[in-house]
């Protein structure tokens, strides 16, 4: 997007929406760039994190919601942990993903991350813990890439980083209640 940006004709509603869902104040950011400096995926994004938040401050909606950045974000929370103004950018990224899905942004539909998050939560619902082997297997099958990351399997098993069988917590039923009560809040999963 190289056209001249018209500053006060942008989407105010969008700014309010993101501030509401994330609980963050966008104007708190003073654009120091520390989020981008520490972001492990910044180098492979079209819009690095600080630019995302700058665009949010100005209310540039379409470009942000269709940016691959929000889907590449690993939620590692380094940005949040290091922000000198206490802006929870990871949380803002969550809000952006939610909104992108809700608004049916085409880029959001294709994202395997959506499937991954569903499978991740399924495992938690069932066992109370993440069953990594099962989740990965299901993810690979459902994305039709059964051999994806297969070269990592043996080293992970050797070092005891992957368990073949799931481990469950004691009161799995109680977890179900939590999921039930939060289901109404979440339209994503």
């Amino acid at each position: 997007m190289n056209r001249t940006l018209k500053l006060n004709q942008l989407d105010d509603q969008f700014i309010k929406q993101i501030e509401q869902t994330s609980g963050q104040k966008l104007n708190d950011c003073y654009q120091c760039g520390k989020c981008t400096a520490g972001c492990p995926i910044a180098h492979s994004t079209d819009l690095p994190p600080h630019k995302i938040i700058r665009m949010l401050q100005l209310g540039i909606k379409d470009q942000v919601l269709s940016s691959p950045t929000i889907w590449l974000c690993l939620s590692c929370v380094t940005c949040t942990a290091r922000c000198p103004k206490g802006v929870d950018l990871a949380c803002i990224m969550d809000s952006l993903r939610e909104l992108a899905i809700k608004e049916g942004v085409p880029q959001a539909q294709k994202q395997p991350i959506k499937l991954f998050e569903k499978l991740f939560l399924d495992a938690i619902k069932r066992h109370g813990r993440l069953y990594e082997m099962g989740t990965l297997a299901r993810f690979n099958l459902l994305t039709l890439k059964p051999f994806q990351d297969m070269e990592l399997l043996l080293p992970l098993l050797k070092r005891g980083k992957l368990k073949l069988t799931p481990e469950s917590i004691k009161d799995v039923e109680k977890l179900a209640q939590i999921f039930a009560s939060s289901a109404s809040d979440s339209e994503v999963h």
Partner: protein
Amino acid sequence: MKIGVFICHCGNNISATVDVEQVAQHALTLPGVVCAHTIPHACSEPGQQLIKKNIQEKGLNRIVIGACSPRVHEATFKRVLAQAGLNPYLLEFANLREQCSWVHEDRQLATGKAIDLIDMAVNKAARLEPLTSSKVDVNKRTLVIGGGIAGIQAALDIADSGHEVALVEKTPTIGGNMARMDKVFPTLDCSACILTPKMVEVASHPNVTLYTYSEVEQVSGFVGNFKVKIRKKARLVDMEKCTGCGSCTLKCPVKAPSEFNMGLDNRGAIYIPFPQAVPHIPVIDKTVCSYILKKKCGLCQKICPTGAIAFEQQDELTEEEFGAIIVATGYELMDWTVYGEYGYGKYKDVITSMQYERILSSSGPTGGHIKRLSDGREPEVVAIIACVGSRDAARGRPYCSSVCCMYSAKYAMLTREHLPNAQVYIFYMDIRACSKMYEEFVQRAQEKYGANYVRGRVSKIFERNGRMVLQGADTLLGQSVELEADLVVLAVGITGTQSTIELAKKLNISHDEYGFLTENHPKLRPVESSTAGIFIAGACQSPKDIPLSVAQASSAASKVLGLISHDKLETSPLVAEVTILKCVGCFRCLSVCPFSAIEEQVLRDGTKVAQVNPALCQGCGLCSATCPPAAIALRGFTDDQLISQMESLCQLNPEL
């Protein structure tokens, strides 16, 4: 002749490049040198002790020190000599640091140069004579020039300590630029509320003589004894008779742009600049008054209940004596009209920061209502452009205004307080908010008041459908941006004034190319001017906000009090001296002397010769260099002494 030579390592500032031991060894071979030592830090306590011990034990009577610049430590070592019982002027200083080790890399060549410098110093030292200073009386009165916040503060500080002050202000009222401001950062207290009590206090203080509408005409004399001619311009209003009722200002049919309101509205030919003016007495603007120009009207004279209008009044000149002078002449906005691209003058809704202050002020031309000048409508979008005439080398203003970041944030807050639904955009380059509570202030503008900061300069402003369109850039996005605004405020930078430059010439103090007065040392003598006894305070020295101006004013006042706490001052003995027998009375010296220190002296036989007033002479040496028959010598730098240095330099150095 017993000369002692002391070579300083200055840590390794000198010794890293100069072989100090070799220099000392060489010094021992020079005629008259009794001892030569190297010292790690000559200025330190052990260093000083070593010099004193040698003076006393070896009976040294001339001292050569090879160290830093004499500007740094000559005074220190003069004290050492005095403490050791030696006349302090028997010291010769060789600069082996700034003029040798710091500027050279080759150790051998630098050592050779250091040896030359010591040779020269030893040769001159052998010809030094003891000198003694004389004493002059100190006048205890102080002149403060400029009645803004800095001048008021300095005058009050001195007056409160029990000393007399004359405060001279060239405009009809004191108060300066601060009186124009609405609320002031970082506390947003009302400017008038904190300034006007001080204005009244200084005007009514028993130790203060207030000269408003007056200018310094001529200054002569020297520290402790200045003679100053003050021109009291004719107000054409008798200040004794006038009660300040203001009826004349209401009836005057003439209209002229109000200086106080930055041309936003009009005043009469007879006017009181603003309601809280001190003194609250009108003045007649002779350039527009119909009576003065055409001998018609005279309405004010007819209406005045006390007969205070005095068209016949003339300027008055008064001469007064002072011991010290504080210059606090303030600043002006730089000429923003050079920015044609911003459309000032073309578009009514592009205004300056000082005009916005007046619009925001409840005593201003709009009664504190933010309105567009074009159609009186309340703006929905206000754009502020920072750095207009700051940090712009191409327009001759490379420095930072130091205040426009802060007042731009202030405008954002005040605008949102006046018009909660208005949007405020600030185009900035960097935010400079480095004083107590300043960064927090700017953050508050962003977080609590929702000011939209856009990093980038605006390139152009044009009109579209009655709105101002700003073409700019958001350098954080890396993209050009456009903003439709209703009102544009140019945050104009600060410059020194032409009248300060003219005053500096009268006072013989230095200023820079922007009209700011130059301090004696940027870190260690920040309120002293280049001339002894003249001090500087406030924005006439550099762009400054109110807290800093007040601090500097108090600092200058304390320097003045330090000066006038002495009944007598010691004068420097390093002054010019005329040998009457050699003087031919050509008086070229008189014409070159920048300090008016040369006078004509008539001898008994009627011949005229030059004479130096040692109290006025600053020891610059111009007269001595100019004198055709070499009749004037500068003590401590006589021809004999300087030629001896030249001679030693011109001898071949066998060690090189």
